[in-house]
């Protein structure tokens, strides 16, 4: 189109000069042709500019220099004009070209800046999520989908799968990661080029690798924590075992060697035998507690569900505790119509025998332990309450921790309440400590849909 520009400029200039012809001198009219030359020069390349200069001189000479309608370049003025036109065309042309180059450069810099900004925003968001510990496989596609250009058009898509699924107006670039496979797709025609997409892919891939490494380290550190925790627990167990087992064992061996001596009265023999019996039972309880705790901590409680009448398990538990604790009174005040629950009956009996025994231990002699209950808010609740010295506020959070001994440290292993909580939770129950009215442990279970009564 540059030839058209040149011809059009010359034609316009010629028409203008023709209109002004006679009003001013020919010398002044040349300036109008110079304007045409400069117009083309600024917009077009050097060759067109020179062609326009030459054409202008010829048109001027042909139409307006005497003798008109002949091409005769004789005047030195014409030679000067041609020289001026050519020089102007060349010099201005150079200047214009430089200016045009600069403008192009500025425009491409602006584009690049925009792309970089979009890219930076995307990478910053991904990096923030990676540092926040989000799962990169889930979050990256979502974040990418939210990145748009300034007009709100979607720009980037990421898919974490090994086979690319691209549409025609996208650049598809594989994410060069060592840990996952995925592809990034960038829309064409929104200022982004393939090189930009590749640069983005490299940056995202680094972040993915960082996230993968982070996840791996997190798993490792969780395992290390668990191992450390288990070690602490094992140490506590060994400590408790060595300390708590020694005294009943000493009592048993002492009593047994006493029995092997001759000459004991009937009463003394009975006393020694009773020492052996009670201390052996205490040891047996401690072993049972330790086994239960290890099952709970290993997540191996495995309840055998059946319909349970809470009256049943509470009565069984109370009977056990009373046998072992010199008939301390236990007032069972459960409503007659307490609904059945679904749970493991043996584990529930252990729960209530531990709670009742705990309550008996802290009750003043002769003051009954109360077992009450009711239904409400879709749950069946049984409460074991004692009137003993309460649990200090500072200790309430810890009472369910293994080996914690609250109040005075009685003869218990410190495992009772940890086992209670483990069994309660394994049977879909909840346990709460309240101290508003004595010390009270409330165990609740979801109220199961009651089965149809028998025919």
């Amino acid at each position, binding site marked *: 189109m540059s030839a058209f520009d040149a011809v059009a400029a010359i034609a316009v200039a010629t028409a203008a000069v023709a209109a002004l012809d006679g009003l001013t001198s020919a010398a002044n009219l040349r300036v109008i042709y110079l304007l045409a030359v400069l117009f083309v020069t600024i917009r077009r390349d050097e060759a067109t500019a020179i062609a326009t200069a030459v054409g202008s001189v010829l048109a001027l000479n042909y139409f307006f220099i005497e003798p008109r309608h002949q091409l005769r370049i004789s005047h030195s003025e014409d030679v000067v004009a041609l020289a001026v036109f050519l020089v102007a065309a060349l010099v201005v042309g150079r200047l214009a070209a430089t200016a045009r180059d600069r403008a192009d450069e500025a425009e491409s810099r602006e584009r690049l800046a925009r792309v970089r900004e979009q890219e930076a925003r995307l990478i910053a968001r991904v990096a923030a999520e990676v540092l926040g510990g989000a799962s990169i496989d889930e979050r990256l596609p979502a974040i990418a989908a939210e990145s748009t250009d300034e007009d709100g058009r979607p720009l980037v898509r990421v898919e974490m799968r090994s086979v690319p699924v691209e549409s025609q107006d996208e650049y598809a670039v594989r994410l060069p990661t060592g840990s996952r496979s995925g592809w990034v797709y960038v829309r064409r025609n929104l200022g982004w080029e393939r090189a930009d997409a590749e640069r983005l892919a490299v940056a995202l891939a680094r972040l993915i690798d960082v996230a993968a490494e982070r996840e791996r380290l997190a798993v490792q550190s969780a395992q290390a924590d668990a191992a450390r925790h288990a070690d602490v627990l094992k140490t506590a167990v060994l400590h408790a075992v060595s300390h708590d087992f020694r005294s009943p064992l000493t009592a048993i061996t002492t009593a047994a060697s006493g029995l092997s001596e001759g000459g004991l009265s009937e009463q003394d023999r009975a006393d020694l035998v009773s020492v052996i019996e009670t201390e052996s039972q205490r040891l047996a309880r401690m072993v049972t507690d330790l*086994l239960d705790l290890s099952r709970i901590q290993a997540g191996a409680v495995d309840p055998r569900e059946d319909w349970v009448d809470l009256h049943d398990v509470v009565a069984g538990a109370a009977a056990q505790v009373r046998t072992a604790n010199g008939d301390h009174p236990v007032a069972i005040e*459960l409503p007659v119509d307490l609904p059945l629950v679904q749970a493991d009956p043996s584990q529930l009996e252990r729960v209530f025998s531990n709670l009742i025994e705990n309550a008996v231990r802290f009750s003043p002699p002769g003051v009954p332990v109360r077992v009450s209950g009711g239904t409400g808010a879709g749950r069946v609740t049984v409460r074991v309450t004692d009137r003993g010295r309460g649990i200090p506020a500072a200790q309430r959070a810890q009472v369910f921790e293994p080996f914690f001994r609250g109040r005075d440290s009685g003869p218990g292993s410190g495992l009772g309440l940890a086992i209670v909580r483990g069994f309660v939770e394994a049977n879909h129950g909840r346990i709460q400590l309240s101290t508003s009215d004595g010390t009270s442990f409330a165990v609740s279970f979801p109220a199961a849909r009651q089965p149809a009564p028998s025919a």
Partner: protein
Amino acid sequence: MSKGGEHVLVVDDEPQILRALGVILRNAGYAVATAATKSEALDAVSVRPPDAMVLDLVLPDGSGVDVTSEVRTWSQLPIIVLSAVGDEREKVRALDVGADDYITKPFGTEELLARLRAVLRRAGDERDDPVVKVGGLEIDLTDRRVSRDGEEIHLTPIEFDILRELAQHAGKLVTQRQLLQAVWGPGYDLETHYLRVHVAHIRAKVEPDPSHPSYVITEPGVGYRLHEPAS
């Protein structure tokens, strides 16, 4: 004391337990044989069938459950399994394949001897007297009448059927399945909630203090036992 020196086989791999049980049972008038493994136990049962067997659930060459199911293919001799706390599943399996009762270690001598007497009584058959007396409770199996300390108690037909089944095996464990089949018939094995509801009703009528039952004792997850009150 055992009446006629009944023969009891004790199976446990722990020699000290065999020793102690041997002393206790002989002292109570039984003739005692021992076995330490599953194969020894099966040999002993076939060579000289005992009147009852006390069987540990954990043996070096197998399980007490296996011993029970093998013995049951040809003998109905009473079997009491010894179980530890935490062995609930094994204990229930042993009862399912035909063990008569269980006792949880560690146990008192009195408890073991009472269980042994109960299973031996069933084997000897006590059915000649139609009235079963347990503590102050009298259950007339033919006239379907129940009284406690001379006072008549009115039970519904289902409640009486449950109590009769327990009374016929007084002192001995009656499993949930056994009760459901005896009272409701086959096909009701899983309806344990029937038992919860009716046993609660029975206790309300029969027990002096229903919240501390002394006659009808629940064996959690296993069954019930009609029991002589302790004092």
